[in-house]
């Protein structure tokens, strides 16, 4: 618990729920007749509703991006380092919206929700949702909140893919796009990692083909394993080396399969902790959304052609030690945008943290983000006047 709420925190926040009864046709061919999205907002929407910023979350993120729910929270929201008064995403200037995507497990309609048509939990029957579906649902949330055009839409990793999709799908509904540690589509290796994660869940006997709640079970082993694997790919070799090296649990080798090295203990802990807060079906859905995303497929693989629809300006950021979404992947987007003649700036930030760097308050990263958004905010102010 924070003894006092820090001055640069958005403070105590309360999630809100938006109910949608207009059916949503999904990429997979199925339709969600009704659904709800849970979201939080920070800052104040100006009169002309021109200062809104949408935050798109990554694989395991949610709507709680900043601040605290109660004074007894041990940790603030997942991107509290970047969102708050005076921070890079400055809530003195912007009205920030963060939501939990469809298919999530933190309050928006997803596999753990009740299917209104059956009265049972969706579980395995929840349709697979895509980045496109998310963006469509986010636009509907914007409609409800009275926001026609976002000053900025911001996201890292899978969140960055949503931002990219926004720029293509709703070109007039955002002034700027901030895409951090992302890619225009997954590499083969990335899909392969996702498949191992899914298989580790699916092969867990407690998974029950996805209907584990109905069977009073939780596939903790599979989900934990998936998270352990994911976690390795989010860190750099150097970062892991610096954190654990070959530190051992005991003075000498035990010659058994217990924990010998501290890194083993860390991974087991990370895996286990994740199973307490996350749903296995949601995890699988999120990995599928990652796999399917490939906007250039609409234009025969020509990314620059599909991005020619975009009208906003772009900021792309990558991190030197990120090998899950390496700088070269961000540069594919940058090059396509340059080819299409779009306004784009790109920073490659020196960082040791690997893919996870996008969640850290690395000074240069925060400075770039803040500089870019400060200009966007002043454009908004000028236009309003």
């Amino acid at each position, binding site marked *: 618990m924070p003894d006092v709420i820090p001055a640069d925190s958005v403070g105590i926040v309360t999630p809100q729920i938006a109910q949608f009864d207009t059916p949503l046709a999904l990429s997979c061919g199925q339709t969600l007749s009704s659904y709800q999205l849970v979201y939080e907002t920070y800052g104040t929407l100006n009169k002309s509703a021109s200062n809104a910023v949408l935050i798109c979350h990554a694989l395991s993120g949610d709507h709680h991006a900043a601040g605290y729910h109660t004074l007894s929270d041990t940790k603030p929201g997942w991107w509290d380092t970047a969102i708050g008064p005076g921070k890079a995403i400055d809530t003195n200037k912007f009205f920030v919206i963060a939501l939990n995507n469809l298919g999530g497990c933190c309050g928006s309609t997803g596999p753990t929700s009740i299917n209104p048509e059956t009265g049972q939990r969706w579980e395995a029957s929840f349709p697979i949702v895509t980045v496109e579906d998310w963006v469509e649902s986010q636009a509907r949330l914007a409609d409800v909140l009275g926001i026609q055009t976002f000053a900025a839409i911001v996201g890292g990793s899978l969140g960055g893919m949503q931002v990219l999709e926004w720029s293509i799908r709703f070109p007039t509904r955002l002034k700027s796009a901030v895409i951090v540690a992302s890619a225009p589509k997954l590499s083969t290796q990335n899909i392969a990692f996702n498949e191992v994660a899914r298989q580790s869940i699916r092969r867990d006997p407690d998974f029950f083909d996805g209907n584990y709640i109905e069977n009073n079970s939780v596939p903790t082993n599979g989900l934990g394993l998936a998270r352990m694997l994911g976690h390795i790919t989010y860190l750099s070799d150097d970062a892991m080396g610096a954190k654990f090296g070959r530190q051992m649990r005991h003075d000498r080798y035990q010659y058994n399969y217990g924990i010998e090295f501290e890194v083993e203990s860390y991974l087991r802990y990370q895996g286990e902790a994740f199973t307490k807060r996350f749903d296995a079906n949601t995890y699988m859905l999120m990995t599928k959304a990652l796999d399917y995303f490939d906007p250039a497929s609409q234009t025969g693989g020509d990314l620059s052609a599909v991005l020619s629809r975009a009208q906003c*300006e772009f*900021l792309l950021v990558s991190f030197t030690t990120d090998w899950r979404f390496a700088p070269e992947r961000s*540069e594919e987007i*940058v*090059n396509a945008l*340059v*080819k299409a*003649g779009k*306004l*784009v*700036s*790109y*920073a*490659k930030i020196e960082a040791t943290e690997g893919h996870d760097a996008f969640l850290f308050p690395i000074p*240069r990263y925060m*400075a*770039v983000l803040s*500089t*870019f958004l*400060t*200009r966007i905010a002043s454009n908004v102010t000028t236009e309003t006047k």
Partner: protein
Amino acid sequence: MRSDLEMIDEWIQPNIRVLDLACGPGELLHHLIKNKQVNGYGLEIGPDDLNTCIKKGIPVLEQNIDEGLQNFDDQSFDLVLMTHALQQFRRPDLLIDEMLRIGKECIITFPNFGHWRSRLHLALKGRMPVSDFLPYNWYDTPNIHFFTFQDFERLCREKNIKILRWAAVDGQLKDHWWIRSMPNLFSETAIFHISR
């Protein structure tokens, strides 16, 4: 704006696609975007310069030019610029080839090491010149290639590069008849507009 930049400005058409290599804080690009409506991008690696560009809304990409420019398609820009930076790269000759591959035309400015003051400094003192314009010692200078107005002309000739026009200016970046008549001796900054 620096006056060598002003001079270049006169040579640049409006509404074209411009790539500025080592754009620094983006003075020239900012001017060209604002006044000539160019579709411009800068390449830079200095964090402070990058941030200055982002602040001004100049499209800037963090890219190390010495690591190559393969990400830019052939003839994808009308103009590729490089002001006061060619002497800092590992292989200026190959870089010029790359610039002419990417751009239909190029404008390059560089400090002329053949200026009489540099010659005098080296001749009389026997040490590498340190001037206001190139205020570094030999060991810490980012300027790893020193060449003259004539050296550049000669390279263009060897490579069959067309010199569309050139200018030669003094330390105050003014041109005078005597500089124009003996640019290798009197110019401090050389400016070349070239194409294939």
